[in-house]
């Protein structure tokens, strides 16, 4: 703990947890290491995330697969997380770093809320995440990129908003829907056909699951619904009341209905 009586207050007055770590415990930051030359051994990579807006909110969904080269590293990984009560983030890229950056981001938002006694604005949160991704740029240059997707409910404008990032920390606001990760090309194609304005929450969940199904159909690094192990995508919705994880039971029914409708059609997808 810092001794509050030491030093001028200005040097300690930060509401940012990341800044505090940079000053006092830099070794705890996921992206502060200076790497030696050489190639990094292959490590698990997280794949496809989709996000879309619906009437009164925004939704994010991720498949459950992590890959390491040609091997499936995990069938159970979760890549969509609540960032705080009114926002969620999904991650694609190097899983080990991405999960730590997520954890740091969650603490960052909660820390600000506790120190300041108020929530950060949605754009403020999105900018903080961008700064963290920029902090990870040296690691990205070693092949360990992390690409998040951020979504939340904006209380000022009363709508759900979506933000995508590039590897340099650039933040871009997206309209309607977006997708990141290895299967994102296929998921985006599906979203363009399936998404309509003013979707209900239920329909939005079905659209997201179907987009991930299409991504898994063509991308080997994206996992489809797995009825053998009872694994379904992780889906979070955010609206005025906060975020909510869609229960497994509902997802099983939705995924079942999609597989069934495709089987009845009996076409080449």
């Amino acid at each position, binding site marked *: 703990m810092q001794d509050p009586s030491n030093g001028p207050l200005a040097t300690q007055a930060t509401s940012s947890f990341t800044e505090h770590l940079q000053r006092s415990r830099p070794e705890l930051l996921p992206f502060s290491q200076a790497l030696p030359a050489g190639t990094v051994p292959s490590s698990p990579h997280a794949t496809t995330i989709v996000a879309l807006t619906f009437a009164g909110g925004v939704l994010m969904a991720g498949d459950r697969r992590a890959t390491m080269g040609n091997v499936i590293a995990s069938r159970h990984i979760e890549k969509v997380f609540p960032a705080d009560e009114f926002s969620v983030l999904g991650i694609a890229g190097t899983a080990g770093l991405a999960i730590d950056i997520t954890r740091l981001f969650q603490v960052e938002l909660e820390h600000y809320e*506790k120190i300041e006694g108020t929530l950060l604005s949605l754009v403020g949160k999105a900018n903080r995440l961008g700064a963290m991704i920029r902090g990870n740029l040296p690691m990205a240059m070693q092949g360990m990129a992390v690409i998040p997707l951020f979504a939340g409910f904006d209380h000022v404008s009363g709508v759900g908003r979506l933000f995508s990032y590039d590897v340099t920390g650039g933040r871009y606001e997206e309209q309607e829907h977006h997708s990141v990760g290895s299967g994102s090309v296929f998921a985006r194609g599906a979203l363009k056909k399936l998404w309509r304005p003013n979707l209900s929450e239920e329909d939005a969940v079905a659209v997201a699951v179907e987009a991930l199904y299409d991504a898994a159909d063509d991308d080997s690094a994206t996992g489809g619904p797995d009825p053998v192990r009872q694994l379904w995508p992780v889906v979070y919705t955010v609206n005025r009341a906060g975020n909510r994880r869609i229960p497994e039971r509902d997802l099983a029914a939705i995924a079942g209905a999609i597989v069934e409708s495709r089987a009845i059609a009996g076409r080449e997808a």
Partner: protein
Amino acid sequence: MTQQFYVSPEQLMKDRADFARKGIARGRSVVVISCADGIALIAENPSPSLHKIGEIYDKIAFAAVGKYNEFESLRQAGVRYADVRGYSYDREDVTARGLASVYAQSLGAVFTAEQKPFEVELAVAEVGPAQEQDHLYRLTFDGSIADENGFVVMGGLADQISDVVRGAWESELTLAGAMRLALRALAADKEVEALPATAVEAAVLYRASESHRGSRRAFRRLLPEDMTRLLNEEA
């Protein structure tokens, strides 16, 4: 040339303690009560924005009396300590006992080494899954730490207020019951029977917040309208 007079260590410590006590005695009081539904924290505080009660971590809250700038810097240091610990180990590894002992060390060091001691008194509360697992620690300006049972009263009229709370406290109190008791106790030196809900700052650490409220963060600030609703509900 100035002459250095000898002052005995006893006298020096006594002077410092008297100084800190005087500062604290001027302030309005805070009551922390463990009850069946969780832990209620109530402070007599006319300001709606300069808080005396704060959230530290999932199950841990902070309450203070004394000089605002001093306890606010201690609160922020506590939040930093808890967040760093929870981030580097795990959320479960942040405990009120650990936090209280760090506070005790900081306060003790300032009391002996600095120009002037902190004019503050702190309470660190941790809500447990059952009432027997609740922890209430009281920390004084010199770094003394006490593990309290059931309730903590701090501030100017601590003795008078604790008499009222001690007389009526029981472990089966509901949240509304605990709030009512605190409002009555805080009015100990006033003409009125109990303080109005608008004159206090109140917060609660809910027991079993995961199952009842869907969040691991047990702390919730109660606005005056929440207080009025709570007090009318079970009246």
